[in-house]
Every structure is written in structure tokens, then in C-alpha cells.
């Protein structure tokens, strides 16, 4: 019988995703001349994970440090170019230009030239911009400060010449003002001994500036300021700076020195404004004409620069790609070791077995392409390290694998829960989220994400959108299952619909007033699919739904947990550990099923027979007084003896899973090492020399510590026994959330406004609960998750990481 089962199991077709790819440890010996090409071909192929053989060396002690430095320098130049391009607002092309192969040396010189050219252009523009700014500031100072001078003088003039006010009153012409000014200026200025300095300063510094001036002159000054009309472009940072024009009136030579010093300290540019209005005008004119000249030059310069930049932009992605690849190749080459003759590079690493022939092909191609006389040697080695875990996923299964990996990466060749999660995860989510209205909304969202898949996958999305996009197929499955569960629950935004025919129930009278208190009458056959819509709001609604969802949760939980334990059987079989099957899998199965499996049986029997038995009572008294008569709670004949047998089995199963395994392990260990007082000699000196840095690094000293093993087994057993209760109870969250969901959506439906809010929240909580049920209740039955991921040297992955 057992042999039959095993034969059957052996004949089952292999599931790809169930076990991680078979890996092998390989050694590659590259002749020096073909090493670079070979490594870059391997990067294209992307299925070899190199091991760092120079871990003890610091980065600049490695062989190819100069090349890495050059690549770093080039990528710095590329960053500089990209920054310049972004600053100038030139668009980068989306797609990569045609992959013509460029030489690295050539690229290096090209980049150097471009950088040089740009820096020169920038400094030119900066100089121009600087002069232009000066002129612009001068213009503004002329306009504004001129204004201060006149208003100040006009004021004094008005005071002195009140009589003439009638003549010139309020006509506001500059001409008139200047007429007076011409007459009065020299006199006023010299009489009071008043000097002035005008200039321009950053708006943010203006207050401090004024205060400092005030303090330095002990208040003997007059400060006029006005906001400049135009913003000035800072030539270095290319930011627009708001400035104010100021004029300080003061007296005395000492004060002048101080003020000039303060101006210098605050970066205020001073410009001398002639007091003569005619000169002033003339100057303004001059400045304006020079300004327009400069503008033209600046514009021309800018156009030229943009042209250069856009021609660079066209090539930039290609160059970036090239440099990144080269750097990765040299980084990998740095992980290799020289062999004794110093003519070859020796590398070690992991690769999947299926890729071996392809790798060899690539290596042959590399030898051929680089005209090397000596081929690259590629051979399989033994390793003590456990191999990395590598699953070949596609875009649908990838998201599920990620969910599992987030808990822990599978041990090498361990049963992969992702296989089952593809269906069970969205299904458990849907049990909590059953509403086909909500499901359709979710479906639309998922379909949109999938429809724009090719477009979105190249774009940079926000962190939240990225999450949604990554899980688009999870969303799709979740929505499909929610529609299915929603149809069973018969809820469309919490409203029942008559889709599959007429209800089996009717009210007792036409007013239907007692439906909520007394109940309904059954008039025809049961509603064909899902929950009868008539029950919504009636007396039987809650008791029925509660009973349905609660019992369903337990059944689903039992199924999933049993699946978990069965997977532990497959694991044990796969790794050939009969000990685990006999002393772990079997008692676990017996314990769980004799208690909660029995409960599931009772639930099904009760559903089928429509009996009134109280299952709580049955379960509780099965422990408290198993010998008592069940009376009205008896569901089938022979239930009492069955209960006693099951209880005894459960009690026996506990020591069964606790004691034998550690003792047998100790016995096996003692037998194996009997009489062996000396350790085994490892590889001799000769071997070490012939195989540099091979497996000799890690010697696993298998020490058997009985107390440790026993404590571990004890913890494991206790966890399982207690877990059987708590995990089963944990599955009741399916019921609770499903109930909460339907209640909440009823409330939201009544207060439509809240619809969107509650919806979002609930998806997340249902998702998290489904996640927990998988990570904890399901995976703790069999999943170790202490492996490490296969990280191949691959250019494709490199691109993903950088973007």
C-alpha cells in the first residue's frame, strides 16, 4: 500500500515552481585576453552568480581598480552632462538609440571633450551673465535711485520755494522736476555736505543690511529702498533672486568707508549714479543699448549650448548604459583571482544546472570572438555552502513569490508555498472581501493596470503606485475571487440581487411587517446559487450568515493547515528524512485531525442532516467528560466511542512528536562517530594548492548537542499543539472580517459619501489578514525560509536597480 502511494507520488509530473532550480557550483578559468569579453557575455546571459574571492582585499588593492576608477570618473561626467541637460530643459529621448558598439577609450575621450566644452561654455555664459547682471542692476539702480534723488530734492525744493508751487504744482513731469533740480542741485548737495551711495542688494538681506548701516553710522543716515522691477538671475546657481535698490544718504568720509565695507560684506553692488539728470538719462540710454547687445549675445550662446546639449542628450542613454555595463564587468573581474601562473583569472560561482550548456556556448563564443588560443575552462565543483534559491517566475507568479520572499527566502529546494498562494491568497482575501460590486471596481482597476502594462513598466511611479502595479495580477485574481464570493454572499455594494431566479421564501402577509421579528415562510425550492436575497433584513439573516461564514472559515482553515502539514511530508520525502515523516508528520496529522478534523466532520454532518446539535457543547464535553452520554447532541451512531478513540489518539500524538526524534538523532550520531576520537583530516596540502580557494574555507564542524536539539524539539511540539488551537481560532478572522465588511458597506451604502473612504481601508485590512493567514498559519507548518536568493550577475537586473 505504502509503496503504491510512493510510486504514484514519484510518477507525478514535476511542478516548476514547487522546488527552486537545481544549482551547481562552478569554477571558471579565463585566459587573461578573453576574460573581459567572457564576463560581459555572461552578464548578457545573466545566470551566473560570482563569489567574491578577494573579500580580504580593499577596493583599491584589486586588479582592475584603474578601470573601475575610470568608469566611476566617466559616470561622474555623465551625471554632470545629465544635470546640465536637465537644467537646460532639453528632453532626453525615451528609447535607447541603436546599440552600435562604442569603444570605451573613445567614449572616455569624447566625454572628456564634451565636459570640457560645456564647462568652457558655462564659464563664458557665466561671465556674460555676470556683466549682463551688472548692467541690469545698474539700469534698475538708475531708474529707482534717480527717483529717490528727485523725490528727496523735490521735497527740499518744495520747502524752500513754496511760492513757485503754484506754477509747478502736481504736474508730475520729470521735466519740471529736472528743471528745478538743475537750478538747485549743486547748492543743496554742497550746503548740507550730504553724500549718497546707491546700489542693489538681495531682498532677504535688506533688513539686516539697513540695521547694520544704522548701527555703523549711529543713525546718521537716511535709507531709501524700493523693490527692483526685475529679478536677477544668479549666474552660478541659475536661480532668480529678488533684489532691492537702495540709496543711503550720509555725511562724512569716515562713514563712507564704513558703509562701503558693509556693502562689500553684504554682497551689495554699488553703482555711482550721477546727480545730473541729463547725464543720468544719457547713461540710461547707453546702458539700455548695451543691455540689448548683451541679450542678443547671451541668446545666441544659449541657443548654441542647447544645440550641443540636445546632440549629447541623444547619445546619453546609450553612453550611460555602456559605462554602467563596463563598470559592472570590471567589478565582477575584481572578484576573480589570479591563478599560479598569473596568466589566467579564476572565478567561482553558482549557476542553475539548466543554464550550463548555454553558459558554455557563451564562453566558446567569447573565446572565438577574442581570438584567444586557449579556451575558457568551465567545470563543476563541490561546495559545502548551501546553494542559493532561484525560482523562474513570470509576471503573474512573480508578485506571489515576492509575497513569500518577504517572509523569508526558501531553503534550497524546499517546497515553495507560492505555488499554492497564487490561488489561496486571493481566495482568502475574497472570503473577507466578498461583494461583487466592490469586486468589479477592483477588477476595473486591475485591468487598467494590466492594459497599460507596457507603458507603465518603463515609467517611474510613486511608491504606492509601484506597489499596486507590481501586484496587478494579484489584484486581478483578488477581484475575480471577490466577484465569485460576492455572488455567493449575494452582495452588490451590500444590496442583494435576484440573479439566479426567485427567492424560496415569502412573507407571512402582504405588509411584510413581521419579517424581521418572526421570519419567512418557505414556498418553493431553495435559491439555486448563493445566499437567498430575500433574507436581507429578515430574522434569519444574521444567524444564517454567521453560521455559514464561521463554519466555512474553520473548514477553509483546516484544509489549508492540512495542506501545510502534507507539504512538510513532501519536504521530508524530498530530503529523504524518514525520521521527520514518522515522528513529526504522522503525529501532527493525527493530533490536528483528531481534534479539529473531527470538528470539521461534525460541521459537515450537521450541514447535511440539518441536525440541531450544539457543536460547542460536543467539543467541550469531549474533553471534560468523554464518557458521558451525548443525548440530544448525538449526530450519528457510534459518535461517543469515536470521540474517545480520537481523544486518546490526540493524547498519544503529543509525546510521539516530542520524544522519539531527538533520542533517535542522538543514537544515529553516536553510531556514526563511534570510536572516532580524531577528526577527519580534510583535504591535504596538495589538494589545496591544486585548487585555489575552493571548498576548503568552510569546514562545518557537526557537533551534536543533545540538550539543544531536545529543547528545540520541545519548543516545536508545544508550538504545534498550542498552535492547533490558536491557528484554528485565527482562521475565524475570515468570518469576522467578512461580517464587518458587509456591515460596513451597508452603512456606507446608506451614507453614500463615505463609500470611497471605507473601500480603500478595507482592501488593505483584508489584504493584511490574508497575508497573515499565509505567513503564519499556513507556512509555519512546513516552511523554513532561511535560504538566500540567487543574485546573478546580469546587465538586465543592473538596469532595474539603477532606475
Amino acid at each position, binding site marked *: 500500500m505504502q509503496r503504491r502511494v510512493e510510486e504514484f507520488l514519484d510518477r507525478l509530473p514535476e511542478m516548476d515552481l514547487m522546488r527552486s532550480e537545481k544549482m551547481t557550483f562552478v569554477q571558471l578559468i579565463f585566459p587573461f585576453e578573453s576574460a573581459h569579453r567572457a564576463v560581459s557575455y555572461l552578464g548578457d546571459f545573466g545566470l551566473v552568480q560570482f563569489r567574491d574571492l578577494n573579500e580580504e582585499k580593499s577596493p*583599491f588593492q584589486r586588479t582592475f581598480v584603474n578601470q573601475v*576608477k575610470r568608469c566611476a570618473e566617466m559616470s561622474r561626467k555623465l551625471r554632470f552632462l545629465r544635470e546640465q541637460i536637465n537644467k537646460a530643459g532639453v528632453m532626453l529621448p525615451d528609447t535607447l538609440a541603436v546599440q552600435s558598439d562604442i569603444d570605451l577609450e573613445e567614449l572616455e575621450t569624447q566625454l572628456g571633450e564634451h565636459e570640457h566644452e560645456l564647462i568652457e561654455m558655462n564659464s563664458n555664459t557665466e561671465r556674460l551673465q555676470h556683466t549682463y547682471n551688472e548692467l541690469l542692476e545698474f539700469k534698475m539702480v538708475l531708474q529707482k535711485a534717480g527717483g529717490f534723488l528727485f523725490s528727496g530734492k523735490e521735497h527740499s525744493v518744495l520747502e524752500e520755494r513754496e511760492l513757485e508751487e503754484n506754477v509747478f504744482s502736481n504736474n508730475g513731469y520729470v521735466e519740471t522736476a529736472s528743471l528745478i533740480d538743475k537750478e538747485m542741485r549743486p547748492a543743496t548737495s554742497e550746503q548740507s555736505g550730504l553724500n549718497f551711495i546707491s546700489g542693489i542688494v538681495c531682498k532677504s538681506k535688506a533688513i539686516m543690511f539697513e540695521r*547694520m548701516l544704522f548701527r555703523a553710522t549711529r543713525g546718521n543716515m537716511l535709507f531709501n529702498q524700493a523693490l527692483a522691477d526685475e529679478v536677477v538671475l544668479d549666474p552660478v546657481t541659475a536661480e532668480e533672486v529678488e533684489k532691492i535698490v537702495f540709496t543711503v544718504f550720509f555725511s562724512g568720509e569716515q562713514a563712507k568707508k564704513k558703509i562701503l565695507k558693509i556693502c*562689500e560684506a553684504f*554682497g551689495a553692488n554699488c553703482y555711482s549714479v550721477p546727480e545730473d539728470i541729463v547725464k543720468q538719462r544719457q547713461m540710461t540710454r547707453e546702458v539700455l543699448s548695451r543691455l540689448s547687445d548683451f541679450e542678443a549675445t547671451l541668446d545666441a550662446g544659449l541657443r548654441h549650448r542647447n544645440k550641443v546639449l540636445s546632440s549629447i542628450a541623444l547619445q546619453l542613454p546609450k553612453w550611460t548604459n555602456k559605462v554602467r555595463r563596463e563598470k559592472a564587468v570590471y567589478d565582477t573581474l575584481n572578484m576573480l583571482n589570479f591563478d599560479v601562473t598569473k596568466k589566467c583569472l579564476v572565478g567561482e560561482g553558482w549557476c542553475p544546472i539548466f543554464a550550463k550548456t548555454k553558459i558554455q556556448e557563451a564562453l566558446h563564443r567569447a573565446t572565438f570572438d577574442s581570438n584567444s588560443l586557449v579556451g575558457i575552462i568551465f567545470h563543476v565543483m563541490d561546495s559545502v555552502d548551501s546553494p542559493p534559491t532561484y525560482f523562474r517566475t513570470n509576471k503573474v507568479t512573480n508578485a506571489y513569490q515576492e509575497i513569500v520572499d518577504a517572509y523569508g527566502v526558501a531553503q534550497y529546494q524546499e517546497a515553495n508555498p507560492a505555488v499554492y498562494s497564487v490561488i489561496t491568497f486571493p481566495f482568502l482575501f475574497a472570503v473577507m472581501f466578498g461583494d461583487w460590486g466592490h469586486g468589479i471596481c477592483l477588477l476595473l482597476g486591475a485591468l487598467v493596470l494590466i492594459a497599460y502594462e507596457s507603458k507603465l513598466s518603463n515609467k517611474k511611479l510613486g511608491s504606492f503606485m509601484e506597489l499596486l502595479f507590481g501586484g496587478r495580477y494579484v489584484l486581478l485574481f483578488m477581484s475575480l475571487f471577490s466577484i465569485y464570493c460576492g455572488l455567493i454572499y449575494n452582495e452588490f455594494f451590500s444590496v442583494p440581487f435576484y440573479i439566479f431566479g426567485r427567492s424560496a421564501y415569502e412573507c407571512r402577509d402582504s405588509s411584510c411587517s413581521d419579517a424581521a421579528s418572526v421570519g419567512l415562510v418557505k414556498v418553493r425550492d431553495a435559491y439555486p446559487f448563493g445566499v437567498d436575497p430575500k433574507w436581507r433584513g429578515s430574522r434569519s439573516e444574521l444567524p444564517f450568515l454567521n453560521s455559514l461564514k464561521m463554519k466555512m472559515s474553520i473548514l477553509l482553515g483546516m484544509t489549508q493547515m492540512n495542506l501545510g502539514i502534507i507539504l512538510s511530508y513532501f519536504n521530508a520525502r524530498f530530503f529523504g528524512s524518514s525520521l521527520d515523516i514518522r515522528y513529526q508528520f504522522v503525529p501532527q496529522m493525527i493530533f490536528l485531525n483528531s481534534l479539529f478534523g473531527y470538528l470539521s466532520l461534525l460541521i459537515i454532518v450537521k450541514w447535511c442532516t440539518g441536525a440541531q446539535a450544539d457543536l460547542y457543547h460536543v467539543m467541550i464535553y469531549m474533553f471534560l467528560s468523554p464518557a458521558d452520554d451525548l443525548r440530544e447532541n448525538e449526530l450519528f451512531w457510534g459518535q461517543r466511542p469515536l470521540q474517545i478513540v480520537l481523544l486518546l489518539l490526540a493524547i498519544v500524538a503529543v509525546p510521539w512528536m516530542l520524544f522519539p526524534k531527538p533520542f533517535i538523532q542522538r543514537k544515529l550520531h553516536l553510531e556514526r562517530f563511534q570510536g572516532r576520537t580524531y577528526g577527519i583530516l580534510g583535504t591535504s596540502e596538495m589538494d589545496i594548492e591544486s585548487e585555489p580557494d575552493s571548498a576548503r574555507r568552510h569546514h562545518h564542524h557537526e557537533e551534536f548537542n543533545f540538550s539543544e536539539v531536545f529543547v528545540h524539539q520541545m519548543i516545536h511540539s508545544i508550538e504545534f499543539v498550542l498552535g492547533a488551537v490558536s491557528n484554528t481560532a485565527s482562521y475565524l478572522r475570515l468570518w469576522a472580517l467578512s461580517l464587518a465588511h458587509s456591515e460596513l458597506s451597508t452603512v456606507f451604502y446608506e451614507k453614500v459619501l463615505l463609500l470611497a473612504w471605507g473601500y480603500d481601508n478595507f482592501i488593505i485590512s483584508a489584504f493584511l489578514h490574508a497575508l497573515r493567514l499565509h505567513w503564519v498559519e499556513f507556512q509555519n507548518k512546513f516552511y523554513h525560509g532561511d535560504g538566500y536568493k540567487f543574485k546573478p550577475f546580469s546587465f538586465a537586473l543592473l538596469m532595474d536597480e539603477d532606475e
Partner: protein
Amino acid sequence: MYGFEALTFNIHGGYLEAIVRGHRATLLTASDYNNLCQCETLDDIKMHLSATEYGPYLQNEPSPLHTTTIVEKCTLKLVDEYKHMLCQATEPLSTFLEYITYGHMIDNVVLIVTGTLHERDVQELLEKCHPLGMFDSIASLAVAQNMSELYRLVLVDTPLAPYFSQCITSEDLDDMNIEIMRNTLYKAYLEDFYRFCQKLGGATAEIMSDLLSFEADRRAVNITINSIGTELTRDDRRKLYSNFGLLYPYGHEELAVCEDIDQVRGAMEKYPPYQSLFSKLSYGESQLLDKAFYEEEVKRLCLAFEQQFHYAVFFAYMRLREQEIRNLMWISECVAQNQKSRVHDSVIFIF
């Protein structure tokens, strides 16, 4: 005395303490220094630093590097971290953090004033200032002609204003005056910081009083050694010592009358913590004293991380990072000037 910091500290200080401890973990270790000391060129140093937290700050520097660029970028990182912490801090931690920078402020003021005295370009001087000690009107320090102007024009707006009360004279500025001003300001600053920490109480007060006392004592010794053979009178010298610390008051009396380095040594060896420090030095030696003091300081600063729920970790972190930058500067200078034999002279391993 210990309060119940553990009960409430994390409400405001927990996040930042976590941050600062995270920063501490990124300080260069002995193996990093060993690698750095083996570097042949400044590019090697850059390459090694690119694997550390300094990486992003140095990666965009074009290749012929200078020591100043390395130091500048490393300081920039410290400043960025400091600013981030200051933005997140609430009272009284924010005040505490601000106190840390006052020392740099004093140094910057002195730098600018001395510079203008020797007719240096202000812009050039500003570049040499420590970015942590910058304040708005620092450039206008050049305007001042004497102490009182210095105070009235510029410093009255800065946090240094209260420390200035003791050095307002209308004397013209000269090198000696400025040096005395620096020490007076420093004395007032340390005393104020000390009082502030005492007011905070708890572990902060305890640890900070240890660290600040050490700082005060070190300054006292330095003042004494530097003033030997100058025209500074004993009383003036005595006035520059901070009024707290292990040496206060009797040690100060002895230091004030010292005439040569061996007398200083004699005075200091009466204090057990400093005895061990001096015992490593031969008689008449003052060159290695600085390094010995730095090493002792680093040791004490590292110990500050052993306790939780106090602010001294921020002080300690800033100081350690500054020491690290000094180390990097020394290493880079040695590498740049081909003096690799001297590279170990002044590097102080932090861990």
C-alpha cells in the same frame, strides 16, 4: 542625581537619539583608517570613502582632488546631519544643539577679525570659516575697528552677545587682544554651557559636566603653555581659566604661576586622570600633549554612548565626527605631500 528620564525621554528625544546613534554607527573604524593609510593618491582615498557614508558627497567631484575639497565635503555631510537634527529637535534639545556650535562661532569671529587685521580678503576668509559657526552678519565683522564696535555692530545680534560683556574695551584690536578675547569668550561660553547642562539635570548633566570639565581643563593647560614667555600677567592668565572643572580652583592657582612646561606637568600630575596622560610623555615634551589630550577626549566621548536617555550623545557625536574629519585631513595631507611615514602621527582611531 538621576531623574526618571527613561520614563519620558523618548517622547521628544527618542527619535533623534536613534538618529544620532545611527550616525555614530557610520563613523570610520580602525580597519577603515588602516585602509585609508595605505592609499597612494587622493583618488584612492576618494574611492575608499565612496564605500562609506561620505560616498554621495564625494562622487561628483572631478578627479584631480584637493585635500580642501575632501575636508569641505566631509564637513558638509556633518553640517547636513546637524541641520537635520536641529530641524527635528524640540526644546531643550534644540538649545543644546545650538550650544554645540557656539565654539565654532567664536573661532570664526576670531578668524575674520584677525584676517581683516592682516588685510586679508573677506571672501577668502569666509571660505575658511567653519560652516557650523556661520551667522548672518559674519561678513560685516570686517567693519569693526575695536572691541566695542565689534560688539555693538555685529555680535549683539548673535548668541555670543552675553559672553562679550567681559571683553568690551575700546582698545584697538591686535593679535594679543584678539587671543585674549577668544579665550574670554570661550571661558564664558563653556561656563554658560555648563550651567545650561546642570539645569537640564539627570544623565545629561552628569556626562556633560565630565566632558565640559575636561574641555575646560584642557583649555587651561593650553592657555598656560601658550602664555609662557609672553607678556600676559599671572592675574590675567588666571582670569582666562573657566570657573569649573577638575582643576578649579586649586589647580588654577598652581597653573597661574607656572613658568615652564615641567611646572605645568608637576601641577597636573596631582590629578589622577591627568597623571596617566602625562606619564606617557617624556619631560620637557609638549608636542605630543595635544595628541594625548585628543585621545583622552575621544575615549571620553565614546563612553558617552554607553548610557541612554541623555543629550551628551549629540555633543559626543559632533565632536567625534569633527575628530574624524581632522583625521581625514591629516591622512589626505600626508598622502598629497608624500609624507606617508608621518601618517600615523596624528590619526586618532575612534573605534
